[in-house]
């Protein structure tokens, strides 16, 4: 196995001082299968941290640990310097880790503001009646979406009528409003067309510009990660095979690490050998 690690760079300028999330030698085993074999990474506020790797590299397992679906077998998870034990997704949300899944958890038949407040509705009057405060909900949903750049006019628009990029923005705005200090975006650009992908990247940059939110950006797409990420971590077969800041990594490094750490030339040679052998 080609295992070449790149030293983790010291935080340039050290402006954002300490990481908001620190993953320390986290391991996860499913029976005999070790999905994560001691993964460490730091995520800083105001930064986009790209998490890259092939299928089966352990990205989903890591996200599921961070968002409280799984518990790690070994290793520590520190949120804001304190060790965190997530027993459920709810624990993670309350600790400020907001995850935007690929399916976005939106209901296309409902309006924007109802989706925004789904499960956390604002009410007026006696609590047990649960009468919705529609005006307030509309106002907040609209304002929060505009903050990160959605040109939305009607909070009572059905989500089913919105573009993929707008939906992504809605899901992100919702996570931030409900207290996410760390935003995990699971392949947010993968199911979209070119134009929509750019919209999502713009949204990511606007959230980054706030400075107080850390973004973990999971993607397959090397170009997208290079466009927005400040820091990169590459996973392969449950291990970190490389990491560093944008400055540390040359374009070739990123491409090589995306391919699981192998040199592209080696791959080319292997392929050639296979072709000749056949």
């Amino acid at each position, binding site marked *: 196995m080609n295992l070449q690690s790149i030293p983790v760079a010291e935080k340039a300028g050290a402006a954002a001082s300490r990481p908001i999330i620190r993953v320390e030698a986290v391991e996860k085993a499913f029976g005999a299968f070790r999905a994560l074999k001691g993964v460490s990474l730091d995520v800083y506020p105001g930064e986009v941290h790209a998490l890259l790797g092939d299928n089966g590299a352990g990205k989903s397992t890591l996200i599921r640990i961070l968002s409280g679906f799984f518990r790690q077998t070994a290793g520590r998870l520190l949120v804001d310097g304190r060790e965190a034990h997530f027993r459920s*997704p*709810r624990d993670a949300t309350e600790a400020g880790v907001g995850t935007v*899944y690929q*399916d*976005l*958890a*939106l*209901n*296309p*038949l*409902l309006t924007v503001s*109802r989706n925004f*407040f*789904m*499960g*956390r*509705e604002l*009410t007026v009057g006696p609590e047990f*009646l*649960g*009468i*919705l405060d*529609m005006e307030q909900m509309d106002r907040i949903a609209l304002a929060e979406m505009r903050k990160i750049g959605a040109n939305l006019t009607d909070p009572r628009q059905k989500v089913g009528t919105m573009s993929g990029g707008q939906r992504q923005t809605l899901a992100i705005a919702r996570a931030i409003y409900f207290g996410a200090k760390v935003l995990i975006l699971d392949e947010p650009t993968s199911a979209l067309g070119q134009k929509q992908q750019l919209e999502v990247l713009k949204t990511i940059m606007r959230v980054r510009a706030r400075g107080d939110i850390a973004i973990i950006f999971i993607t397959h797409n090397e170009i997208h990660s290079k466009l927005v990420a400040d820091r990169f971590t590459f996973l392969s077969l449950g291990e970190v095979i490389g990491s560093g800041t944008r400055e540390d990594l040359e374009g070739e490094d990123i491409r090589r690490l995306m391919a699981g750490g192998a040199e592209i030339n080696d791959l080319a040679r292997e392929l050639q050998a296979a072709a000749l052998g056949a």
Partner: protein
Amino acid sequence: MTSLFKDRIEASVILGAVAVALLFTIATKGLWLQNLPSLLILTAGVGIVAIGQAVLMTSGEVDLSVGSVYAFSGVGFIWFMGQTGDVALAAILAVAVASLIGALNGALTTWFHVPSMIVTMGGMFVYRGCVYLMTAGHSLSTPRPLRDSAVIEMLGGRTAGVSHSILILLVVMVAAVFMLARTRLGNHIFSVGGEPQSAAANGISPARVKIIAFSLCSSLAALAAVVAVCREGTIYATSGKLMELETIAAAVIGGCTLRGGIGSAWGAVLGVFVLSSLKGGLMMMGAPTSWYVAFVGLILIGFLVSSRLVNGRLN
């Protein structure tokens, strides 16, 4: 949005209700209008149940046992009256028992992930069996000493010629419309009906919401039975038969889908109005009652097909 009307899920049932009213009024030269009060009482009886069915269908489930629960609750109401001698208490107990039946339906459906139609079909036979046993296949009547009680007068009487059943229907309808449109529970019902996974990801328990909806549906069936017993004084072994079909058909005509996430309480009530009008019309034309059974079935299927054709989504 050019037209508010065009986008409404209730559009076709509004057209249907107007068309039926016009058609019968013209065909009978106005005679039909005299029939309206009894038609509205008919609508009220099934309408209360249809509201429950519509709420439940909005949450993505269906209840085939409403007709049996209706009869069972009517029988229970009368039995409780005999036991307690108190009409109000008996009514509360009957509705409470029904709400437990609904919760059981909901628990079985959601915990074991089986189609609600099959679970409630089981319930339909169980409760109908109980009704036959308790009525010995005939009927039960309100205990004689209680027939003039104030509560029975309140639930089953008339004011200024208007049957209280109709007023109760209106109250239930307004409450249901408000609940669906303006409360947290309503929001959750729409959420779990359309996209249960999304709802769950946002911290809403689909099982909990559906169990509440089932419970509400059965309770409304019981309320309808209590009102009917107060009005008529009698419940028969066969009371409420066909009600599952009528209420589902009315809910579907009124805008609900089997998948859930879409639904309207007043649409369902209008749906019942259309069905009851047709029933009355067929009777006035001297058609045998068997026609009505076939007719409702055909309307249900015809409506499903035509709405699919209008939406142009053939597989």
